[in-house]
């Protein structure tokens, strides 16, 4: 029998595990990706929180977290060559008594390449399985939960919201372009259609997926030299050595438990 046994059922796990997830430091990343026909340079940060915990003993021996929430903030910019909007005005002639007949030449209105900055925050909810990993590293016993595989993110709603945000950003950027007025709505619609949900999904997925693939959070950290009682005036600290640690998911009649065994000396 181990020297120390601790066990949590799923009710306690739904307190302990979300707390561990919520204390993960913010994740961040940057890069470039395709936004439909455009290339976007992006930076993003994300935090994880919440989730319902299900302890599933072998098989498959996982801690399943459903409805885990990934809150993210995304900043990116992309360039749009607006030359497809170029048009030419007709020649205009006037007759002025003291000057005579004056005609303007054919003036072609040209549009530049613009950069559209977009900032958007939202969240996605996902389900992921985690497997326990117990290891002694740097003088500490660690019980980590390591994600199994790559969780699938349901980003369709987030993509739709982001497309709306992109549309607003495009409209704002187009407003700054001289001469765009009469064709602003048409230009924005044409650009949004070129991007589409597929384009946004194609950008968002590769940004968010790395935040959850390889996800690891820590459940237990205990120094191998464990301080039972701290030093006090006239009293030395009392330490024991954690010789071994094991963590398992156990099936018991009526409930599943996370069990941690430790031996000390």
């Amino acid at each position, binding site marked *: 029998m181990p020297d120390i046994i601790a066990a949590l059922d799923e009710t306690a796990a739904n307190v302990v595990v979300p707390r561990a997830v919520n204390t993960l430091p913010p994740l961040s990343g940057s890069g470039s990706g395709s936004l439909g026909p455009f290339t976007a340079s992006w930076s993003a940060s994300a935090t994880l929180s919440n989730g319902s915990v299900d302890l599933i003993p072998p098989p498959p021996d996982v801690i399943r977290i459903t409805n885990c929430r990934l809150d993210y903030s995304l900043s990116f910019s992309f360039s749009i060559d607006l030359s497809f909007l170029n048009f030419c005005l007709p020649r205009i002639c*006037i007759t002025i008594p*003291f*000057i*005579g*007949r004056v005609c303007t030449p054919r003036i072609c209105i040209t549009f530049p390449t613009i950069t559209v900055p977009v900032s958007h925050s939202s969240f996605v909810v996902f389900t992921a399985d985690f497997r326990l990993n117990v290891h002694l590293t740097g003088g500490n016993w660690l019980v980590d939960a390591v994600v199994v595989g790559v969780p699938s993110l349901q980003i369709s709603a987030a993509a739709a919201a982001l497309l709306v945000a992109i549309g607003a950003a495009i409209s704002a950027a187009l407003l700054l372009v001289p001469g765009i007025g009469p064709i602003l709505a048409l230009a924005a619609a044409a650009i949004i259609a070129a991007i589409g949900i597929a384009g946004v999904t194609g950008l968002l997925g590769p940004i968010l997926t790395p935040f959850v693939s390889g996800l690891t959070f820590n459940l237990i950290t205990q120094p191998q030299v464990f301080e039972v009682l701290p030093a006090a005036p006239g009293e030395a600290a009392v330490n024991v050595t954690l010789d071994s640690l094991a963590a398992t998911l156990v099936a018991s009649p009526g409930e599943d438990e996370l069990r941690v065994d430790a031996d000390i000396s």
Partner: protein
Amino acid sequence: MDLDSRSLAYVDCFAQRFPSPGSISYHLSSTPLPCPLPDADVFTIEVREGDSGPEGQQHDVRVSVDGGRLVADPPQLTIRQEDVVLWNAQDASTPGFAVQGDGEEFSFSSAALRSQCVYSHVFLTAGDVRWVDANGGPTSGTIRVRSIDSSNPEECRRWTESLERASVITVEGETATPDRLEVLAGQTVFWAIANTTGITVTDERIMVPIQRPPVAEPEG
């Protein structure tokens, strides 16, 4: 593209009628100085006696950049009395410029519109524009530029038809007629200058108070 006759953009035109025969030298500059810089290129207009007809003839000069310098095409013109020369940038890459020239008895400047000349501008952005004389004169006016919902076929048709129509503001002395005008984005407005002291047509919003340096006393 701001409304400013001192700096002609590719959506602007400046036209000058030449009522008297003679040789005219003019230069193009990106700064509206009232005199040419020493190394400015000089272009010429030879005004021959006798007119071209009841309404005169228009000669177009395209302004562009070549080798980092503003150039006129054609660089030399031969015209008749009462003919009109119109300057316009070749394309959007040409920076804003001013046209200033002198003859024996005649001078003109797009930065000081004086007599028998026209300045035109295409308004591209919706909004209210109050234009003033940057040379300090009282002449001014207001132009309301409206936009349309181009997704509406009827509005779109109305707009494309309006692009072929021009609005004209006549300036005589210190008075501009009309002093209020409403146009659609994309339409052209002409300022026909009959006789003034030399005004500019400048968007009031880009008028920056300039602190003039002290003037040196003439020698002697």
